[in-house]
């Protein structure tokens, strides 16, 4: 069709925000917290949960739940932006910053420029380390003061609020350092490799 026909009287119920310093272009603000998933919700018990840092074949660190909870805890209030266009402002998270994880295994800096996050259920996403250090990323275990429910990624999820929320991988279990960047689950199916919401980098080719 040359011209898409207009449906008389139909309009969006969502208020798209004029871009301002809180809401990236093309997003609308919601007070809900939509649950989006690519698979069944893993139901990992805390007693079998562990989290690992990996470089090549080496394990740089591994923590069980008690050990992970004993790491320095930080709280962050952040805005989050999903590529499906919803944004949620002032969300509060608690967990361990990426900086503190590196410190706890005696690393002053990251051993490689990129990471791949590996999660229960098989989900993966790739992130440059530069977007995780300096307080920019954490492994979160609490949302609004309570343990993160499984549907929202608990027991622990990655939190990288500066990038589209698909990068804040739910059910994270392992961070694998990479010398070369590799594409994760959505990045290998047409989504942008980096995903900066402020540049509207939703899709590969944007």
């Amino acid at each position, binding site marked *: 069709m040359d011209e898409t*026909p*207009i*449906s008389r*009287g*139909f309009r*969006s119920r*969502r208020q798209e925000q004029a871009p301002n310093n809180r809401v990236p272009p093309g997003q609308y603000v919601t007070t809900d917290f939509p649950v989006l998933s690519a698979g069944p919700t893993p139901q990992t018990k805390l007693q079998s949960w562990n989290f690992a840092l990996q470089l090549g074949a080496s394990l740089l660190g591994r923590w069980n739940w008690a050990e992970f909870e004993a790491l320095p805890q930080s709280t962050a209030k952040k805005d989050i932006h999903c590529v499906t266009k919803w944004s949620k402002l002032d969300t509060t998270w608690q967990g361990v910053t990426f900086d503190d994880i590196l410190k706890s295994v005696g690393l002053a800096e990251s051993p490689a420029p990129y990471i791949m996050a590996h999660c229960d259920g098989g989900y993966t996403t790739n992130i440059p380390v530069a977007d995780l250090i300096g307080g920019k990323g954490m492994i979160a275990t609490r949302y609004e003061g309570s343990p993160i429910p499984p549907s929202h990624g608990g027991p622990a999820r990655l939190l990288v609020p500066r990038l589209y929320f698909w990068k804040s991988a739910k059910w994270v279990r392992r961070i694998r350092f990479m010398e070369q960047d590799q594409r994760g689950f959505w990045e290998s199916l047409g989504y942008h490799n980096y995903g900066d919401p402020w540049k509207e980098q939703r899709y590969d080719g944007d």
Partner: protein
Amino acid sequence: MAIRGKNNAMMATEAAAGPVRRLNWQLAHVRDIVVETYRVKSVVLDVTDWQGHLPGHHVDIRLTAEDGYQAQRSYSIASPPEDELLKLTVERVNDGEVSPYLVDDLRLGDEFELRGPIGGYFVWTVATRGPLWLIAAGSGIAPLIAMLRHRAKRKVRTPALLLYSSRSLEDVIYRDELDAMARADPDLRIVHTLTRKQPNGWNGHRGRIDRALLAEACFPPEQAPNTFICGPTPFVEHVADLLVELRHEPFRIKTERFGPSGG
């Protein structure tokens, strides 16, 4: 080549069963709006180049606002292939974006984009052998009524059973039509259950569909019924699990889950 109308019913079903053409967006024109219940309406559409469909097929519709905003949803086709016009049955979902527009704002003469028919997996025709067992909750009745309307138009004697769960009598979609169908057809049995509210003197079932009801209102597994379950995801999964426990063959059970809100 447009194939429509009751004289071409056989050709319509065969055309729809043939090689699938490239799926294009077409224009659908609203020719009638039928009130089914206090929150459900059927929209009757004239689709310019409609090539026919099979009972159980669905369509995608796409609405475009003046500012270019678009929303897309899927709806089962409630009309049988023997009907000239296409009928979609829509339940108003309170915080929905599309269903309130279709149920409350749509007018005769309006138009929107539509593509289909799609979803040949969830299809039944009178050419299929074996009894027909239909299990629905709420608006999940839509694809199943297309099957029953088709069966009635073709006047076949295929044994059929509809088990239909609704919140209350006011929520039963197509109530009068279903009653009339069952009265006129000794090979069709319809069993209602009302889950939240029952009228005084109600002799039918109450509460959700459970193992006991499925064991009583059924075709036994040995008769290998072709079974279609449609409605909200938790309902469909619960019923499908019970059927497997009752020894029905999984591959004869087809499900169409509507997601959390029921469409």
